[in-house]
């Protein structure tokens, strides 16, 4: 199921490096060129002299595609989601966005009760090919601008959920999301946007990625082994992939070879890849930025614990944010967001104590 990084078509072959923002922007413009039905809906996404959305992803697109296709909306998140769903049922392929993922709660009924269920309630007669982009992650903006919300949407049947960790995946997954005939919630991490061509985020990490000029898609439901290893499996998404990779490098210095799996999509989820790796390393941990209780990691632990019962030498452990809102003060926020140190310590404990 999962492709080791080296097998990914042309990823490393390309000399061109892009930031996440550039990669996502390219995905949008390629898809808009390819398919006239693709339109964008969101706040401040196309205003002349404006931002190109809260994080510049749509910058320049109104200039190329016009305001008919890059549609600036009022601050009306419920209607943004619902209008996107209605337009999708009506034959368009809208890509909507909220400026911060936290605002998805406002649109929750339209996403979870309408977009997600229209197909089912109609007995399969309707498709709702829409994408809702949403930036997540804590960046010293306090409780209402820093949540990770993947778990809420992973729990809604009828929604797909993507969460790329790097520009290459970002582009390939966004293109796939746009072509998918189902509603897709597409999470982007604020600290991964990169600084080139993007709004600079304090604490952001510079993830420049090889992005081939040739078109490619990344299928949903295929996790990626971001780093192979034999001693323990670390499953992560978004920013936590990078923390986990950094932790793996530190662990390697201590003789522990951690395998890091980037889930890439949470719905569908690549159960085979994770189960295979866990059976092989016999130890599993999950790293997510979301609050511990009820995070998506709980589902991974529950299901892998079940299907790999007897094949694991240690308890499945989760590293996640504590069960608190996101605090403002950087000192507390650093405590809140799972750190490389915690990942290292947890892996080390699992490897040495079991």
């Amino acid at each position, binding site marked *: 199921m999962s492709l080791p990084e080296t097998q990914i078509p042309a990823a490393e072959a390309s000399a061109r490096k892009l930031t996440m923002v550039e990669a996502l922007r390219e995905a949008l413009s390629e898809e808009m060129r390819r398919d006239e039905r693709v339109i964008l809906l969101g706040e401040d996404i196309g205003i002349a002299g404006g931002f190109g959305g809260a994080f510049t992803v749509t910058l320049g697109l109104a200039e190329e595609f016009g305001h008919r296709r890059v549609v600036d909306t*009022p601050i009306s998140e*419920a209607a943004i989601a*619902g209008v996107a769903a*209605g*337009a999708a049922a*009506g034959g368009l392929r809208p890509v909507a966005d909220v400026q911060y993922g936290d605002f998805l709660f406002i649109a929750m009924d339209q996403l979870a009760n*309408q977009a997600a269920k229209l197909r089912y309630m109609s*007995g*399969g007669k*309707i498709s709702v090919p829409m994408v809702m982009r949403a930036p997540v992650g804590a960046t010293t903006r306090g409780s209402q601008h820093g949540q990770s919300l993947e778990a809420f949407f992973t729990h809604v049947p009828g929604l797909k959920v993507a969460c790329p960790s790097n520009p290459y995946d970002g582009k390939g997954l966004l293109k796939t999301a746009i072509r998918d005939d189902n509603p897709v919630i597409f999470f982007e991490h604020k600290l991964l946007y990169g600084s080139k061509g993007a709004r600079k985020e304090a604490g952001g990490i510079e993830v420049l990625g090889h992005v081939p000029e040739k078109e490619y898609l990344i299928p949903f439901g295929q996790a990626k082994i971001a780093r192979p290893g034999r001693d323990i499996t670390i499953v992560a998404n978004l920013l936590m992939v990078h923390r986990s990779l950094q932790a793996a490098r530190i662990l390697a210095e201590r003789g522990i070879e951690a395998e890091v799996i980037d889930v890439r999509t949470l719905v569908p989820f690549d159960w085979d890849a994770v189960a295979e790796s866990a059976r092989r390393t016999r130890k599993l941990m999950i790293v997510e930025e979301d609050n511990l209780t009820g995070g998506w990691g709980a589902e991974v632990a529950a299901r892998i614990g079940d299907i790999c019962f007897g094949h694991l030498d240690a308890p499945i452990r989760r590293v996640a944010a504590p069960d608190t809102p996101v605090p403002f003060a950087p000192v507390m926020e650093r405590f809140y967001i799972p750190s490389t140190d915690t990942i290292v310590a947890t892996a080390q404990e699992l490897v040495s104590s079991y």
Partner: protein
Amino acid sequence: MSASTLDKTQKAGMFRRMVLCRKFEERVYYLFLEGRLPGTVHQSAGQEASAVGVCSALVEGDVITSTHRPHSHAIARGLPVKSLMAELFAKSTGCCRGKGGSMHLGDLALGMLPAIAIVGGGIPLATGQALAFQYLGRKNIAACFFGDGAANIGTFHEAINMGAIWNLPVVYICENNKYGASTSVDKVMKVEHVSERAAAYGIPGVTVDGNDVEAVHRAMWSATERARTGSGPTLLELETYRFSGHSRSDPGHYRPQEEVAAWKQRDPVALYEKALTDQGILTEEEARQIHDSVEKELEEAVKFAEESPSPAAEDCLSDVFA
């Protein structure tokens, strides 16, 4: 079809649809009483002029959205009664293959999005449909039904504003039947007419006698003209009344008996029958034939529904994703 020139055939057709709506609800009422239908139901007897008047102004390709009270909308839009009845019977031949039920009746291919049972939840969807029509350069419109109760929910505000600023081809239709469940409309809003809220979005608001099917038709017709010619939405308020309780379990004791009685005096089906026969558009014999043919159609629909196969239990698992 043009508003000013409803011809005999059209009028007779509208009348027949109204009778079909009414008798459908009557059948459904008894089917529920007899325990032959599962779930619950919100009936629309008394509101037929609104459903039929609105849909009589629509053309092929237009789309309606509806609510928890969708039976008459679906019938007025022309969905086959068989497929509606079968859906209420939870059969696989139902318009939603048994997955939707009363509150989600619809068939997009036939011009009706599955009804949305979250009050106000369909308003953004209708607006999105209209955006698609506008974008694709179609001459179609979306007709968005909702109740007076929905006028107080956030999506009403957000979506109508969006429809307004983008001049979308959509008509927002508030069936003001004076109550949201047990709650009288004047307990929950200070304005007398929902249509007064149109001004907040800079679009026309019109209040019409919702029990006069031709008045509804005319008002809807002008609204569709505006919508089709790029002038944007209208908020059309249809004053009407439901004869039954809010839902199956509701005897409706919160409504003064005189009020109910007064509205029953203005039964839209009876009124139209009288108007058409008075005007010599229908003979009494023709009217009777319409009633009979409706009974027959419903008889067949029930038979069809009853004889149709149930879905399999495992069908539960399909249709989640495309």
